[in-house]
């Protein structure tokens, strides 16, 4: 059986090939992720204005100071509400739109482009457009509400500390639903038609078909969308910074914008680095289980 020997040799060289293949990504990762993080951690133990030649070592003081600031907790809470929103909002809207479109609808390609279009716009431009949408007295949103007789619902969208986060989430919904929509749309297309036909023949309503047949098979797409949403919620920066700078009066601040303001608005680089480290830890606690789950799927794939 010469083939077996050949195969064994192949599998031995496979280990070598794998190592060679992996060396480039691992190098990039070590240089561009590990090194900056270590250096950020080091900086977080210092007090430094960003310009003077010598940072002063202060130990864990930056970490302790932050734990005594209500401003810090407020940003953490905002990150958590963003997490909840991004897991639910764009995901369910995207799923709804994809599910509605998944039946040879007229003008399907037009819908597909329209829903995806906002996702392609840079954050600064999204912010500029939505600063108008949200102009509280003559902006598009207020005008439309007034013209349909719901003027009472119009708000001081970006200027009211208790409203501003919801307003930002609204623009985020517009901006990012396209991605969730497309992933789900692709996922639905991947479901073999026979499955759905079979369920229909058995007399299931479209509603039942969706929840009993399609939705469970969409699980891989759902994992992708939810995972990206969680990552985005922790990294969130652009849209908040460009639209409100975290204001009014810190109301819409998240950790990344607070870090930016602390570093460059107040010249406290060490404290800003400590915020980064906290952010990393919190993100880790929340997202790590997800990543762990993903890594475990390697095992499952092998078991097949």
């Amino acid at each position, binding site marked *: 059986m010469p083939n077996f020997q050949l195969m064994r040799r192949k599998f031995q*060289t496979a280990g070598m*090939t*794998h*190592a060679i*293949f992996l060396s480039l*990504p*691992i190098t*990039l*990762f070590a240089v*561009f992720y590990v090194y*900056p*993080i270590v250096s*950020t951690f080091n*900086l977080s133990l210092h007090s430094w204005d960003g310009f003077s030649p010598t940072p002063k070592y202060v130990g864990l003081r930056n970490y302790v100071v932050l734990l005594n600031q209500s401003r810090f907790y407020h940003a953490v809470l905002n990150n958590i509400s963003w997490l909840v929103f991004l897991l639910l909002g764009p995901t369910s809207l995207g799923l709804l739109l994809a599910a*509605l479109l998944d039946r040879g*609808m007229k003008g399907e390609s*037009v*819908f597909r482009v329209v*829903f995806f*279009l906002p996702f*392609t*716009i*840079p954050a*600064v*431009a999204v912010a*500029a*457009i*939505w600063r*108008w*949408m949200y102009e509280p007295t003559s902006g*598009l949103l207020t005008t439309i509400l007034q013209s349909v007789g719901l003027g009472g619902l119009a708000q001081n969208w970006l200027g009211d500390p208790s409203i501003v986060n919801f307003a930002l989430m609204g623009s985020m919904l*517009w901006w990012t*639903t396209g991605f969730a929509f*497309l992933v789900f749309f*692709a*996922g639905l297309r*991947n479901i073999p038609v026979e499955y759905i036909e079979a369920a229909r023949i058995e007399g299931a309503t*479209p509603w039942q078909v969706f929840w009993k047949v399609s939705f469970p098979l969409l699980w891989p*797409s759902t994992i*992708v969308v939810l995972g990206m949403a969680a*990552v985005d919620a*922790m*990294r969130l*920066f*652009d849209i908040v910074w460009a639209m409100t700078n975290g204001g009014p009066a810190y109301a819409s601040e998240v*950790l*990344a914008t607070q870090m930016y303001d602390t570093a460059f608005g107040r010249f406290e680089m060490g404290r800003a680095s400590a915020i*980064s480290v906290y*952010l*990393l830890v919190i*993100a880790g606690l929340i*997202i790590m289980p997800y*990543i*762990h789950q*993903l*890594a*475990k799927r*390697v*095992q499952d794939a092998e078991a*097949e």
Partner: protein
Amino acid sequence: MNTAVARRTALPFSILVVAAVIFAAPLVVAFLTSLKSPSEITRVIALPNELYFQNYAIAYDRMGRSFLNSIAITVPSVIFSLLVGAISGYPLAYMRGAGGRVVYFFLLTGMLVPFQIVQIPLFFLIRSLGLYDSIPGMWLVHTAYSVPFCTFFMRNFFASVPRSMYEAALIDGCTPAGYFWRLLLPASGSGLAALAIIQSRAIWNDLLFAITLTTSDKATPVTATIAGFASSLQVEYGPLMAATLISLLPVMVTYLLFQKAFVRGLLGGAGK
């Protein structure tokens, strides 16, 4: 029968139309604004009295070089990041045992690093490599920071390719590397296309790396120009909107070109 179908699709169709109108409305406002003269811009939702194309001329004039820079940065960065994602996803999809899992886990943790954290060390790194304010520097940075996501994406895609194909190829005398380059990669067009769309959008729209690592006209991409229109004390909304609309064209074209493959490739045959 026909009326039954019509009845069944009428409601979803009208919901979709409403959604489409809502999604399009901000862009319509942006488009109208891009055609208004400065004196008309104070009335945001009114139609322009006359079409003022000069905003496009201003936008084009000021974006000129940066638009080309963006293309020169994005196209190679997307190709490199896809390649690195593929060569890193391949072993991770086929390796057995704990080693592969640990490496995979390790690389994925990169997905949770906010990029604001890395910018100062990154600046030093790029400068010491002599790549500050250069387009190749941007290729390197975008490729490096794409590693976690592209690895994740390509590994999942490869994992969905039946393993029997791999074993058969080895029996036929193919080396593991040969299998990757000659069989697996050419067969992964749809997955690569899907990733290409996501990556083009992410890299084209990057602002943070752009303003940290480029400084002159020869490397600054279009997002930095748009940020210039948007963030100064006086915002010039006409040219800003014109610039935005021009700048989203390339990503849009990429999307339209690859969308068929996108639908097929996004989940790597997850429905198997």
